């Protein structure tokens, strides 16, 4: 393992410290907890709290700020944060209008956030939750944990955050978040693994000419492995799987996110994005806004994911609203 770290056991604390001292105008670390909160909180606004395992930076601390999150809770690398940490985040940002928890759909995340919600509710704080589940690599059925939450989670932060910033109620913000979740789908792939610092070795091995389609953001296996293709072939495969959902049609307006998993150069992401645009154009789908970059990473994994979100008038308006956070600035 070769990493720029001091100690595998303290990577999360040191990262949060670094973030807090580097971006003090945006975020403040809650003393004694792995929680980043907005430096300037808006009173009377519904507060948005998200979080999850670390290693997905800039998710989620990078999205704490105006028009997105009010707090982000950082667990150990790829491990959900514990209920006591989430509970502190909820208490720190509630200003009386209630708190919406945005949870990625993983067994541990859902359990820990639910336990924290129960603790906060016992204190009289109103808490609602939404669970993102945009990854189409996983078949949705009652026999599994359900689809995983991946890069689409960032669009939920953006849009629900804008809704809250405009002064909407907790019920309205939750409804908007649910609307995003219902209309977004993602599909990813990887060509190189990542190494969890405390584990010291890669979580999976791919041969030089191999790629894994549907790879999860924690290195969970995807749908299958195959011989690596060109960027166009990869883009085609990812988009095809998303379009097979049958929710994006000619004439629809969509937002697109071409997300890097950590070690993929922007050059490659733009090549993929070019092909994604061409495929959608051919289908008559209108691209309102495209985000290309590292939004939901998996440490130094090489690979990418594509997310599509179908927009109605409200979602479009909220998507295009301003945001000002360490990792997401839009005027």
């Amino acid at each position, binding site marked *: 393992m070769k990493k720029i770290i001091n100690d595998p056991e303290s990577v999360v604390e040191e990262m949060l410290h670094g973030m807090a001292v580097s971006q003090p105008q945006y975020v403040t670390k809650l003393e004694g907890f792995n929680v980043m909160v907005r430096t300037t909180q808006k009173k009377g606004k519904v507060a948005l709290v998200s979080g999850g395992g670390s290693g997905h930076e800039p998710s989620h601390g990078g999205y704490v700020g105006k028009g997105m999150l009010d707090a982000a809770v950082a667990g150990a690398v790829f491990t959900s944060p514990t209920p006591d940490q989430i509970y502190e985040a909820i208490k720190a940002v509630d200003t009386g209008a209630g708190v919406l928890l945005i949870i990625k759909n993983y067994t541990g995340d859902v359990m820990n956030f639910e336990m924290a919600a129960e603790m906060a509710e016992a204190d009289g704080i109103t808490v609602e939750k939404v669970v993102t589940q945009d990854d189409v690599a996983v078949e949705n059925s009652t026999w599994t944990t359900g689809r995983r939450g991946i890069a689409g989670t960032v669009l939920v932060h953006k849009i629900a955050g804008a809704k809250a910033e405009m002064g909407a109620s907790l019920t309205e913000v939750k409804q908007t978040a649910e609307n995003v979740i219902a209309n977004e789908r993602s599909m990813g792939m990887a060509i190189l693994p990542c190494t969890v610092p405390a584990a010291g070795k890669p979580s999976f091995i791919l041969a030089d000419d191999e790629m894994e389609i549907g790879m999860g953001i924690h*290195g*969970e296996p995807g749908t299958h492995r195959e011989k690596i293709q060109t960027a166009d072939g990869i883009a085609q495969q990812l988009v095809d799987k998303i379009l097979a959902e049958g929710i994006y049609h000619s004439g629809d307006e969509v937002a697109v996110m071409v997300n890097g998993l950590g070690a993929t150069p922007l050059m490659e992401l733009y090549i993929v994005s070019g092909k994604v645009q061409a495929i959608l154009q051919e289908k008559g789908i209108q691209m309102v806004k495209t985000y290309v970059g590292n939004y939901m990473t998996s440490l130094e994994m090489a690979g990418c994911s594509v997310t599509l979100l179908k927009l109605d008038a409200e979602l479009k308006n909220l998507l295009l609203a301003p945001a000002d956070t360490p990792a997401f600035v839009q005027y």
Partner: protein
Amino acid sequence: MIRAKDAVKAVGQAVIDNKVFLTELDQAIGDGDHGINMARGFERVFEKIDALQDDTDFSTVLKTVGMALISSVGGAAGPLYGTAFLRAAGACKDKTEIDVVTAKTMLDAAIKGIQDRGKAQKGEKTMLDALIPASEAMGKSLADGKDSRACLSAAVQAAADGVEYTKTIIATKGRASYLGERSIGHQDPGATSSTIMLEAVCKVLK
């Protein structure tokens, strides 16, 4: 007489000793952190119970274990094992000594806690596939009038068999469920850690 702190230390040490093994099992079908998280949890447990008197009762010690795991493990294992230890603590309140009947009551309370929190059943490739057979075997041995050593041995054997059984079934809960049929052939890390803990505590109780 067996002291609660000693029993917990034996359990924790067994988990820490198996840190790499559990992590490797999790890398095959999960997200590769089970051993790391559990070892971190029991290191926190050791800090917390070191602050307790040596003769602290089982219920207090187990409650301390549960709270320490919930606040340090994370993932799914933290809430699940944390809840299990809290429920076991509730099932041995006012008990000064743990006999096999009490041990079974505690195990059953822990199983109920895991089911309440994780909404899983037997046969879904989870820790329950080790723990439920262990409880059943213990119950059968008790009913057959076996002595406590035999009851504990039967529980450990049933849990170990349960781990073997998890190799043959498809995961329908947790991250391994994403794999579908590809989870066959792999033993469940949670069932394995449950068995390691059960084995360690039974060794102390014998």
